[in-house]
């Protein structure tokens, strides 16, 4: 007799919408699991009500997460998840609106919205999965791709420097900025849990591994090899300085930690939609 074993997070997923499109060895599942454990904890503690949580994604592998979770959710236009979420939050201030997207979606095509949403300090949680490549479309250059690496559109090596999204968002005045990594799932869970309790703009970058596209192109197709290569480059700090946030792949470090944690008045407080 076959026994159907359920995943502990099945109650928060849409199993009938599965299978997902993520490749074997992809880091996104690790990240989503940790995110959902944090959400689940907030629900079980009575801090969040399930029907008052929304997941908004744009286009890309990471953004698909919003379709696999069993909440009010949206699969929006590439790069425009943050404006969608802003409009939703403005008329539904009692909801916790979570944006999940990749580095291309959030910091590339959607970079202008990210910058202004952080400056506005609008009450959202934006989670950017950073696999440093355009994965869904087959491995093209991302604004986050480290210098020198091969992508299909920089076949002679990336001549550009990667955008430091953590520093950008911090500079724009967000209330909470943290960087985590799929090599350290408990950190993801802890930061998401914390960010869910923040007012104003909260931003978490999760460094993720894409063995099928990013890894393959740099000679590291094996998922475990790539994960280990990332782990070697990761440093965890309690309260890192913002100047420690820049990364490179060759000879660089990914410094994880909570870069910003403050309580400036949020946008919705300032316009009187929610009480300070």
């Amino acid at each position, binding site marked *: 007799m076959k026994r159907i074993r359920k995943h502990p997070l099945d109650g928060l997923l849409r199993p009938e919408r599965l299978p997902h499109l993520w490749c074997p060895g992809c880091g996104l599942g690790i990240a989503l699991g940790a995110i959902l454990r944090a959400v689940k904890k907030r629900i079980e503690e009575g801090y969040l009500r399930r029907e008052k949580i929304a997941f908004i994604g744009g286009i890309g592998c990471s953004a698909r997460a919003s379709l696999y979770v069993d909440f*009010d959710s*949206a699969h929006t*236009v590439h790069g425009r998840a943050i*404006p*969608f979420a*802003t*409009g939703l939050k*403005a008329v539904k201030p009692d909801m916790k609106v979570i944006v999940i997207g990749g580095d291309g979606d959030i910091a590339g095509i959607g970079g202008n919205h990210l910058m*202004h949403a952080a400056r506005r300090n609008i009450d959202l949680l934006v989670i950017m999965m950073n696999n440093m490549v355009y994965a869904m479309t087959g491995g093209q250059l991302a604004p986050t791709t480290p210098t020198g690496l091969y992508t299909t559109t920089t076949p002679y090596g990336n001549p550009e420097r990667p955008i430091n999204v953590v520093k950008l968002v911090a500079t724009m005045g967000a209330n909470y900025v943290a960087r985590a990594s799929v090599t350290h799932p408990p950190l993801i869970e802890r930061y998401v849990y914390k960010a869910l309790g923040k007012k104003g703009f909260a931003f978490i970058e999760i460094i993720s591994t894409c063995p099928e596209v990013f890894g393959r192109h740099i000679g590291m197709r094996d998922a475990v090899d790539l994960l280990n290569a990332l782990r070697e480059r990761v440093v965890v700090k309690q309260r890192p300085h913002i100047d420690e946030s820049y990364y490179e792949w060759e000879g660089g470090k990914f410094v994880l930690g909570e870069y910003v944690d403050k309580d400036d008045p949020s946008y919705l407080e300032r316009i009187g939609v929610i009480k300070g």
Partner: protein
Amino acid sequence: MMARVEFINANLAIAEGVMTAGLRFFAGYPITPTSDLFEYLAVELPKRGGVVIQFEDEIASINAVIGASWGGAPAMTATSGPGFSLMLEGLSFAIMTETPLLLAYIMRADPSTGVPTKSTQADVFQARYGAHGNYEIPALVPWSAQEAYELGAKALWLAERLRVPTILLSDATLAHTFERVEFVPVRRAERKRPKVPPEEYRPYEPEDDLVPPMASFGEGYNVMVESLTHDERGYYAPTNEAHRKLIWRLVEKVRRNWRLIHDTKTYFMEGAEVAIYAYGSTARAAYAAVKELRRENLRIGLIRPTALWPFIDEDLKNAVGSARRVFVVENNIGLMYKEVARALRDREVISVPIIDLDLPTPEQIIEVVKEWRR
């Protein structure tokens, strides 16, 4: 009780109309000749419990409107040609996800930056099919500040009633024309609500009128807003069957409900042998021309659609009656002429394209009509 009367332009009239119809959210980016509509709402809408946000561009604006609409709020943005071009991807998203929203499109002279403070009617096809994909959406076209008030309210109502983005196509001439506006009662914008409990609800399952009831976020329905081709649940369905079914329903939803959209006005058409077809601000000059020509005993009338899209042949034929010759007068290179000529194959249809940064004059129109009389 007498309705309030104000001396205002069409932009402010739109703002008053949509607020009376129940607008709760506006997102926008400044652009001539639209900004006074935005500024007026920024003052007035918060007083009525609504939210107004200026975004970093038109792309953000329309996507925020879509988000607010899924939050249950009657929502709108306003722009002109360049901004509309930026909004097109968002508009296509709203069409696919059947998101109610109003887009006030105040045309200005064209292409590119053109003459921002002046107008033509160059963008009627942009309003119809500017975005990517197969679709139909309603576009209403007022000819006065009074009608801007009424059609603004109606467009918001239609958007909610049909779960479709709706365009109110005005222009810079009307935006700068101050006239008497009576704030007559208008219908409140309301969408169909789910009639089943959340576990049975499917966000894209239509009723007989092809419009699906719409649950908002935050009500426990676990709604899925899906931009991919989807089934009734909102789940990705990359098959011919599902795609054809969805596309034809989105199109037929608007076409079959055309009687809710169209309210074509006719003037002096009883027994008319000749007709002018004109819309928006240009119809004002056409109306003056018709009256003048009738003084010279020409049996001429005016057909003035208040909705350009979807184009309904039956509606036009009813308006034309027995007129055998139709002049299509418009402030562009002859755009609506293409549709009118196609629909009226058995009549003589003449294009009268008069590009004028202010308005075609009645004299210009009279001259053309008389030319053909000889």
